[in-house]
């Protein structure tokens, strides 16, 4: 190929297995991540069709959505959830798939442990029955969410028929202001382009701000991209990426590493390569954000107010404000909260916990608030404990829990009661997401910790660190 190609096109071209006439191209899937919620029917389908898993070594499973965050060993109270977890245990055993079960020291949220273990690498195609699979694009891979039928398809064939998406370049220039994080950048983008602004596109993030993000920051950014409707999101790999991946358990070693690095260095968009859309953002315009409504695009800066009914879609705003129990014109900083959740595949990694702990240190959670910290994996939990972060949180009155998806979507017992208002570091504020009638506001980890202490949303840029 002599024409200029984007990073996405390079990965796409390298994975085309065949281009049948009149059908979408068949793409090979390098890594298939599996969890308990979207897989049982897929394995049943394999069994019914008498098919094996084609590439067990490329399939990695864990339990994350349904499991409690009580101390490990506590029985699962919900018999249906227990049945679903048992189904995955049985299926992994039967089909010979590597499985990080609840009692494994490597267990965690699937999009946290993939990178931690070194499965997630530049240049790979990665899928999972979960929309936040976009997270792995932070490594310069093509990673996207699929439904259960496609899970079965990948298990059976290790391929997917995919229509080639369009490409969008989001360039972020300047410098992130103090107190403004990758989460705020993500919310800023979604606020600007809307929840369908990137539908049909793969986003590539570039620019000095993106280069300056740590791997965890890049993961937060790519993770949230599905909330703008993006098919996938990616950041070209660089020294930051290589340093993260090196020496991880399932990363290439020795000669294989040298070979891999040589190839990974080619995974950049060629200068002048064509993108179907380009969006430029000046980081100086960003601030800590808070969602006010019932989708991630309904968002405003901390210094802003709940919108009135005159701009935008009046009906949707009205419905959102009614559900959220908010009055137009209310300053965000005046909104009190009942619960705080620091966790999820968006923001539950070590840097997130360090940032939140830094805010919490020396303070105490407001007596009217119940605050919970759920580390993204067992490995993160132990690393955090090595640094004494759990003591900072517990001394400040936060609950320190076991790893899992937890309150992001409330499939386990960690849910909001109707009417409870939550400052959450997760990725979706849809109606009922965290529990029927629950009111979710998305924020960064620092903003969540500050809200827990203040009892209401507050501008982290004015925080007095102890």
């Amino acid at each position, binding site marked *: 190929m002599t024409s200029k190609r984007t990073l996405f096109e390079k990965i796409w071209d390298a994975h085309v297995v065949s281009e*049948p006439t009149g059908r979408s191209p068949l793409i090979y899937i390098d890594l298939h991540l599996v969890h308990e919620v979207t897989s049982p029917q897929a394995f049943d389908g394999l069994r019914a069709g008498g098919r094996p898993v084609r590439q067990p070594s490329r399939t990695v499973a864990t339990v994350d959505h349904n499991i409690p965050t009580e101390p490990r060993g506590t029985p699962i109270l919900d018999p249906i959830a227990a049945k679903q977890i048992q189904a995955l245990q049985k299926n992994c055993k039967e089909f010979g798939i590597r499985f990080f079960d609840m009692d494994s020291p490597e267990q965690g949220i699937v999009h946290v442990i993939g990178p931690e273990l070194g499965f997630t690498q530049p240049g790979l195609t990665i899928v999972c029955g979960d929309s936040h699979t976009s997270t792995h694009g932070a490594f310069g891979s093509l990673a996207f969410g*699929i439904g259960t039928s496609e899970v079965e398809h990948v298990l059976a064939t290790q391929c997917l028929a995919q229509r080639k998406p369009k490409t969008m370049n989001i360039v972020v220039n300047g410098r992130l202001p103090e107190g403004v994080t990758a989460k705020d950048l993500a919310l800023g983008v979604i606020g600007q382009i809307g929840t369908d602004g990137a539908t049909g596109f793969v986003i590539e993030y570039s620019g000095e701000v993106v280069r300056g993000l740590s791997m965890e920051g890049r993961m937060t950014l790519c993770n949230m991209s599905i909330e703008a409707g993006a098919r996938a999101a990616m950041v070209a790999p660089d020294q930051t990426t290589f340093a993260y991946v090196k020496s991880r358990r399932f990363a290439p070693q020795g000669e294989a590493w040298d070979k891999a690095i040589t190839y990974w260095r080619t995974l950049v968009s060629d200068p002048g390569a064509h993108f179907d859309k380009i969006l430029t953002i000046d980081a100086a315009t960003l601030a800590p954000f808070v969602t006010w409504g019932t989708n991630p695009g309904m968002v405003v800066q901390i210094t802003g107010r709940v919108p009135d009914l005159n701009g935008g879609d009046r009906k949707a705003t009205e*419905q959102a404000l009614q559900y959220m129990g908010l009055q137009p014109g209310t300053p965000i900083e005046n909104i009190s909260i009942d619960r705080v959740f620091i966790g999820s595949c968006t923001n539950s990694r070590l840097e997130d916990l360090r940032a939140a702990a830094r805010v919490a240190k020396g303070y105490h959670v407001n007596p009217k608030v119940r605050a919970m910290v759920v580390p993204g994996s067992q490995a993160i939990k132990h690393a955090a404990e090595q640094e004494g972060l759990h003591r900072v949180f517990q001394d400040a009155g936060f609950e320190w829990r076991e790893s899992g998806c937890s309150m992001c979507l409330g499939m386990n017992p960690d849910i909001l009661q*109707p009417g409870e208002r939550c400052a959450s570091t997760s990725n979706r504020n*849809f109606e009922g997401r965290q529990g029927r009638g629950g009111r979710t506001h998305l924020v960064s980890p620092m903003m969540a910790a500050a809200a827990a202490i203040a009892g209401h949303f507050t501008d982290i840029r004015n925080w007095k660190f102890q």
Partner: protein
Amino acid sequence: MQPFRKHQGRAVPLDRVNVDTDQIIPKQFLKRIERTGFGEFLFYDWRRTPDGKPDRSFVLNHPRHKGASILIAGKNFGCGSSREHAVWALSDYGFRTVIAPSFADIFANNSTKNGFLDVTLTEDEVAELMRRSQQDGYQLTVDLEQRKVYDDRGFSASFQIDDFVRHCLLNGLDDIGLTLQHESDIAAYEARHPSPWSSNA
């Protein structure tokens, strides 16, 4: 998979934009390990009041729309989570198709795996159908063969659809079988790109 060729039925207007898959099928129902039985839980939090009784104010519960098999909705239908259970719930409830100005990608993909047709019309056409479907006894026809939506009261609109998706829906084709026809291509690719990981013991 049941083929979709032409369907005539009653339509119900869901006049909301950005209907996300958490609304279509809330998370507590994702714990099931079967593919069936999700229809009961479709739009659960909108269809029922907190004490579990039918919410009479929700459009699906209106007697006029009982037995509706065509859902009309606002833009970006099916956004959010990748849960294919959303399609299963719609299908199990009795819907064969959704008509909207736009659909989220993953939902659209999942639809094609279940013989479920997503029809994209313009905002104006959708608005017109929302109006008409509130008339008693209104029947609508969705014709995949002709790529047309029409009624017997003068409405007619064409829709675009990927040729291959249409082909699979018309013939109820199984994706996995189709892919395995390319076994030699897959094997050739795998010979050039062996797995870097060992199989689990």
